[in-house]
Every structure is written in C-alpha cells, then in structure tokens.
C-alpha cells in the first residue's frame, strides 16, 4: 500500500503528519476566481450581443457564488482534508458552461430553429442553472452522508444490477437522433449512461479488489505475456460483451468505449498485468470493427469522420463539417464571446457540440485552457488514487478519473474530428441535467476519497503506561 509523501513509512502504525494543512483557504481563494471569471464572461457576452451589461448579471453571479459557497462550506465542515482543486475546477467549468449556454440562448438562429421545429423556444440557461443547483445539492449530500467511501464497497453487486438496468433501459425507449441513450418519463428525459458510469465504477472496484489476486497470480506465461486462466476471463468477456451490446442496441459508440476503457484501466491497476491492456485493446478494436461492419449508424459516423466535407456526408448530416468550420473560424484567439457563428451547427449546439462554441469564440487559446482544466481534474483524481490508503479507494478513484478522461477525449475528439463522433456530452459545460448532476456526484466521490486519504490518522490514545513501556526498535 502506498503512503502520502509526508507519512513516515518506517513507523509500525500509520500515523499521518499531524496537522497537515487542510488547504480549505486555498480552495476558497480559487473559488473566488472560479466565480469571478464566468461572471466577467457573462458580462462580455451581454456587451458583445446587446451592447450592455446583461440585467441578469447580478442574479447569475450571486447564484453561482451561492452554489460555490454552499459547496465550499459543506466541504469545510464534512471533508476538510479533501483535494482543494477539484471544487474550484468543477465550478469554473460549470460556470463557463452556463455562460456559453446562455450565449447560445441569445442566438436568433437557434431561436428560430426551435420555433420552427417545436413551435416554441425556451431558454436553456435557467434550466441548466437549476440542474447545476441540483448537482451541487447531490454533491453536498454525498459529502455529508458518505462518511467513508469504503461504505460503497458493500454495494458491489447491487451496483452491478443497477448499472445493468440503467444501461439496458434505453433500449426500450425510442431512439433520439439515431442513438438510444435516453429514458423518457413524461416530459423528463434522463441519460442513464451518465449515472451508470459512476455506479459501474463502484462495481468494478469492489469486484476487482476481491478478485485481483486470483486474476494476477493464476496465469500462465506465454511469449512474455501472462495469459489469464480461462475461467478468470469470464468477467472481462462479460463486460466486453455488454459494451458491444450497448454499441449494437443503443448504437452509442462513446458509451461503449467509455465502459470498456474504464474496465480495462481498473483491471490493469488491480492486477498490475500489462497483458490485460493488450487483451483489452485487441478485444475492443475487434469488437468495434466487427460492429462497424454491419451497423449502418456506426458506418455513417465513421464516414462522417473520414470525409466530413464530401457531398454524400454533407447530404446526410453536416454536423462534423459545421463543427470543424466553427473551430477553424475561431482561429488562435477566437472571435470573442457572443461574436461567432457556432450556432450554425443548429442541432445540439449547446449540448453535444457546445465545445465548438468554445472553439469559435474563445479560440485555440480558450480551448487549450479548458482542456487543461479537464486535464487538471483528471490529474487530481489520479493523485487521489495514489494517495488513497485502501485498494478499493484507489480503484474507485482511478476508475472515475479515467472514465472522466475518456469521456473528455471521446467528446472532444468527436467534435474536433479526431475520432468518430458519438452522442456524449462534455462534462460540466454541456447542457443536460443528467450529465451535470452525475459529474457533480463524481467530483463528490473523488473528494470524499481524497479527504479520507489526506486526513491525518487519529492521534494514538494517550497511554498511562507510556512512560514505563519501552519500545525496542531495530
């Protein structure tokens, strides 16, 4: 097991550095920036579009500030040793996302489109603010009630069942834009994949923590690789089959890649066997190529990725082309918030393609900054895994962080034409209740693990015999 840098490892008991800084004040200072930057961005949009500071500025600033403040106070009280960067990073991304969604609400083109398609236009920014509030509330609930992340370990198999139900459920609901990833109840639509991401990470971590020795040690060596025993292959084949089924029945390349990728990562960390990575890569590429050979929806996505500007692709859907032109038109410095034409994408401009607006209006500089923010979240997550003292915490933290990284890669790569497009959303910045709430929950769990990891161990109980006892140390 590992130790934090300031924990002396030669001690027999795990006494942490007593009085390690909690860094809550650092977090507060960073939060001020995380609130002020989006407020300035908000004012910027108003000035660019209407020539005046938007009237909702105060409300927006107070709202975001309140959310950040509540989050901070809850953390200060219930998880004082949690990582100080995660909350400000998530708040900043959430705030910028709100600004861009509000900016796209002002677009006459999107308003007309909504009126034409649905008969009425309703702004999305207020709803997203509500979702953000729900997300922070969920975050606070996790911090307050989840005293120790190891409690989650108890629900390993329940998690599996719940995750399977969530993943399978969309099959029974009609496809939206060619992908079955939504459940609709009344006027509500939920993207269960976003929640399944977290729940399945709990299952993977709990299951592999128990099985890791069997998987790691009982293997045969073959051409430098440790081949797992046939019966140990069971779980990986099950997960692989599940992700393929997602791909076939829900035609969602991204989610499928996300689950399989996360599983391989957790498996590799649990067993420390490189062979699992090789297996994972071979199986996922074989699966993806196999499915792509007969699934028209996937083929279409691949064609759109390879030749975004060809006449055939443009006739079907010009999304990828529009997104690329949006990025290209932004150039190095961007047009400035409110001054681009990223709304030409039309469909899902503020959800799946929200990143194109960042690209056009904030330019290469802005996109790189946002990507680095995501990179920082992932880095803090992996660092939490390194610092965690228990294997379950390590696996869960690395599972969640790698899932986050893969999601950013799949969505960002999709809209930038690096890989075929899939229907996932950019964490925190894209419009969508499921996505925002689930990602706040993810941050909550990571912070809980990091709090446990960084918290100094309780001081040994004062022993009245201490004076008389002599401990002989080597």
């Amino acid at each position, binding site marked *: 097991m*590992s130790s934090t840098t300031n924990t002396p490892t030669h001690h027999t008991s795990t006494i942490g550095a007593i009085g390690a800084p909690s860094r809550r004040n650092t977090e507060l200072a960073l939060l001020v920036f995380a609130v002020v930057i989006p407020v300035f961005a908000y004012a910027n949009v108003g000035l660019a579009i209407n020539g005046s500071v938007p009237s909702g500025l105060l409300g927006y600033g107070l709202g975001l500030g309140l959310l950040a403040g509540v989050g901070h106070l809850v953390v200060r009280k219930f998880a004082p040793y949690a990582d100080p960067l995660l909350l400000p990073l998530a708040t900043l991304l959430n705030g910028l996302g709100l600004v861009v969604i509000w900016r796209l609400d002002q677009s006459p083109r999107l308003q007309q489109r909504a009126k034409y398609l649905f008969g009425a236009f309703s702004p999305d920014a207020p709803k997203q603010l509500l979702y953000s509030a729900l997300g922070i509330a969920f975050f606070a609930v996790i911090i307050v009630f989840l005293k120790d992340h190891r409690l989650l370990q108890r629900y390993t198999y329940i998690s599996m069942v719940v995750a399977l139900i969530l993943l399978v459920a969309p099959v029974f609901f009609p496809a939206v834009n060619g992908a079955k990833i939504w459940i609709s109840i009344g006027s509500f639509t939920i993207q269960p994949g976003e929640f399944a991401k977290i729940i399945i990470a709990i299952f993977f971590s709990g299951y592999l923590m128990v099985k890791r020795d069997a998987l790691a040690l009982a293997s045969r060596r073959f051409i430098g690789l440790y081949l797992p025993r046939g019966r140990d292959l069971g779980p990986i084949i099950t997960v692989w089959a599940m992700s393929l089924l997602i791909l076939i029945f829900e035609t969602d390349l991204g989610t499928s890649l996300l689950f399989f990728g996360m599983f391989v990562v957790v498996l*590799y960390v649990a067993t420390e066997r490189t062979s699992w990575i090789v297996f994972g890569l071979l199986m996922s590429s074989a699966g993806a190529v196999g499915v792509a050979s007969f699934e028209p929806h996937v083929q279409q996505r691949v064609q759109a990725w390879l030749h975004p500007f060809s006449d055939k692709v443009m006739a079907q859907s010009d999304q990828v082309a529009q997104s690329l*032109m949006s990025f290209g*038109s932004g150039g190095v410095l961007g047009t400035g918030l409110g001054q681009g034409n990223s709304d030409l994408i039309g469909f899902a401009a503020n959800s799946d393609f929200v990143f194109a607006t960042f690209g056009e209006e904030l330019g290469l500089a802005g996109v790189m900054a946002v*990507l680095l923010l995501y990179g920082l979240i992932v880095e803090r997550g992996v660092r939490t895994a*390194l610092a965690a003292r228990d294997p379950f915490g*390590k696996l869960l933290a690395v599972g969640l962080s790698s899932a986050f990284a893969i999601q*950013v890669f799949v969505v*960002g*790569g999709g809209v930038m034409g690096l890989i075929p497009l899939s229907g996932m959303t950019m964490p925190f910045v894209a419009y969508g209740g499921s996505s925002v709430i689930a990602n706040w929950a993810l941050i909550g769990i990571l912070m809980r693990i990091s709090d446990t990891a960084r918290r100094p161990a309780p001081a040994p109980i004062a022993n009245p015999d201490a004076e008389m006892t002599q401990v002989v140390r080597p």
Partner: protein
Amino acid sequence: MNKPLRRISIFCGLLILALLVRDNWIQYVQADSLQNNTHNRRVSIERYAQPRGDIIVDGKSITGSTQTSGSDFKYKRTYKDGPMWAPVTGYASQAFGATQLESIDDGILTGNDDRLFFRNTLDMITGKEKQGGNVVTTLNAAAQKAAYDGLKTQGGKGAVVALDPQTGAILALASYPSYDPSSFAGNSTTTDTKAWTKLQKKNNADDPLLNRALRETYPPGSTFKVVTAAAALENGLYTSADQKTDSPLPYTLPDTHTELKNEGNIPCKNADMRTALQYSCNTVFGKIGADLGKDKMVKEAEKFGFNAEQFTPVRSNAAVFPKTMDRPQTALSSIGQFDTAATPLQMAMVASAVANDGKLMKPYMVDKLQAPNLDTLQQTDPQELSQPLSSKNAQILQSMMETVVEKGTGTNAKIPGVTVGGKTGTAQHGVANSKNPYAWFISYAKMPDGSSPVAVATVIEDDNANRDDISGGGLAAPIAKSVMEAVIHSKK
C-alpha cells in the same frame, strides 16, 4: 498498485495531449482553409454583415445595399438598371454566391481586403463600423444604355463591346437577354430561389445568365477579314490598299475541287483589297489566307489577342484561331469560318488596334479601387498588349475600313462630322448553314483631329428574323452607330 497508477496517469495525459495537438491542427494549421471552405456560411455572413461597397460608373453608383430582417444576413445587394449592368457587375447573392466584379473585388467591397487592414484596425479601435470600399469602372453610362437599348429593341440575342482604343478602357459591355441580379440577391426560398431557378439554362433556353460579351464565342465571319488584311500588309504580301490582288474568280480552295463562293455577284476578280473589303469578297481573303499560310495567319491572329483569355479583370473566354489545319481550312479560317470563333470583346479589340494606329491596348474595366474614404488604393494604368501592325499599315487598313462605311456594306454606321471605319460580318453556322447566321459589325470612330475615342463590336444572333434580313450592316451597324454617338457626345 502505484506503478500501474502512474502509467494510467500518463495514459490520461496522452488523451488530453492528443486533444491539444488536434486542436492546434484545426485551429491553427488548418484554420484558413476551414474559414474559407466553400461550405462555410460565415463567408457570406461576413460579406453581407455591413453595407457593401459600390460599383461606380461615371461617378454614380450602379449598386446599393438595403438592410434586411429575419435572416442572418444583415444587408442585401441592390442594383440600379440591373439587367443593363449585369454583364459588368455580375451578381452578389446571399444564397447563390458572387461572380464577376462582385466576386473578383469582393475583398474591397466587403472591406476585408488586406489593403484595408490598417484602416479596419483603426476603425475597430475608434469604434467605427467596418465599411466596404468602391470599385470605379471605366464604363460610359450613355454608351452602355445605347448598347443595351439597341439590343433590346432588336429583340434577338446579342452583345456589344465598346473600347477606348487609346487606353483599352471598356466603355460598354452589354449582353441580351440579361437578368436582374436584384431578383435573387437575397436568400428567400420563395422569391430568390424561384427567380434563380427560372434563369438557369435548363429552364430558360435564352440562357440570360450567360455573359455573351465575354463568355460566348461566335464565328466572326467576314469581320475576320480585317485580321487577314492586316496579315497581308504586315507580311508584305500586298503593300497598299489599292494594289490589284492576284485573285481568280471562281476560286477553288487549294488541294480541293470545292469552289469558294461570294455572297452574290460582286466584283472580286483580281480586286484590290479596298474593293474586296468593301464588297466582302470571300475569294480574295480566302486566297490571301491560303497564300500566307497557316503559321503567318496564326501569328497575326494571336497578336490581335486570339487563343488567349483576357482578364478585364473579369475573365473572357479565349477567341479561337485554329493552330492545326490544312490549306483549304486555312483559307476558310481566314474569312472567319471553319473553327474560327471570337468573343465580341475580341472583335472590339481588333477594331481598336486598327483605330489606335496598330497598337493593341489591354482591355480593362476597373479604373480604380477606392477605400471607404475614397482614397485610391489601386489605379489601373493603360497597358500595351501588342502591336499587331505598324502605324503605316494601320492607316492603310483604316482607309479600307472607312471605305466600307463610306460606300460599302456598312453605310448604316455613318455619323455626320465623324469618320467611321467598320466591317460587317454575316457568319454562317449550323450544319450546312441550316441555322440563321450571326450578324456582326465592328467599327471605330475617328474625330477630325485624328484621335479615335471608341471602337465597337456588335453581334446579333436572331433566330426569328428572316434569313435574308440578317446582315451585319442591317442589324448590327445601327446599334454600333448609336453607341459611338453616345461616346462622342459624352466626350463633348
């Protein structure tokens, strides 16, 4: 577990790095090509984001801009006398792109040209809205109106090009039937798209979108005899207009038994070149072409501008004088038949070179480009393209062409007090001349002081007219006359 964790952290870092690299690729390396991609609507949005600069004729703008609502294009292009000026302006349509001057000088008109960059930056700092510059043309409004009205009255398809022989400036550039670029300048699917569809060649046999003055080549017929005469003089085959030529009648095309015919019973046997041009003798000029041979004819024709596109800056199609042909074909080509084909601009260039004492000036229609504050950004200087014939020979040819108007086939173009030289043409076309011929007239006017202010080429293709009625002198010469008069009057 920490070793694999560190590796996973590197893996996650690589994922983010891949995104960063890709982002640099599309937002820096490929940014320009994506920005100007043909599918990128931002190009047109930018084009119509502010009032477009104007195209100016005789100090007045022939274009305008109006503000529109309900679309992402803020302004729409408008045209004054659209059909008349369409061959000059082209169109700038929100839905269908831009052509001709509207396209070539788009940077100036939208204000995005690099030469305006400094001003734009200043405007941005001082908070002024970006403005487009103007394109000042060389055209003459009166001449253009005379040309367009003449064609319209005639009713058939046709084109007129008038040049200033001394500079090459284009004074008139008319094509009929024409179109009104205002009718599809917007992007409404109900009005603009309908108007656009109706103008397409497949829906409209008249093909009004075709700029006949620059982009249609017609067999030049007898007007090409001027080039043949120039070749004869330049190569010393005959040294004077009044020297008897060695021309039998009937004349059999070399290496064949085919007789070359004249139109009617005209005095062509051993006629001198003046008489031959006056009566338009096919036999005389066919034999001159055959005698000179293919190479000399090609060389002379190319000096007049054949076989090359002209950029005025609007591109004209290349006129054709075939480079590979046998002797009888050379003879036929020399009287403007076989594969010889010329744009109206090309034939105007022929007339202008003769009128300008043998010097051919490069034709141009943009006098200068102006910044929004009317500073001149670029001025076009007249440029000599070539010298197809010497000054002495040019004067001989002038006297021959003046005889044509004085007492030959071109008497309809006479203008009192002004010396006019010209040449008619009635070009055959269709299989075995089944279709109605084209009526041509090329001419120039010479003032009493010897200077020549205008050279004109007119072509009429009339499917409805009686075949006998079509002759360059009858249909085309009156239009040329009114254009020349308009130019002369506006100079006074």
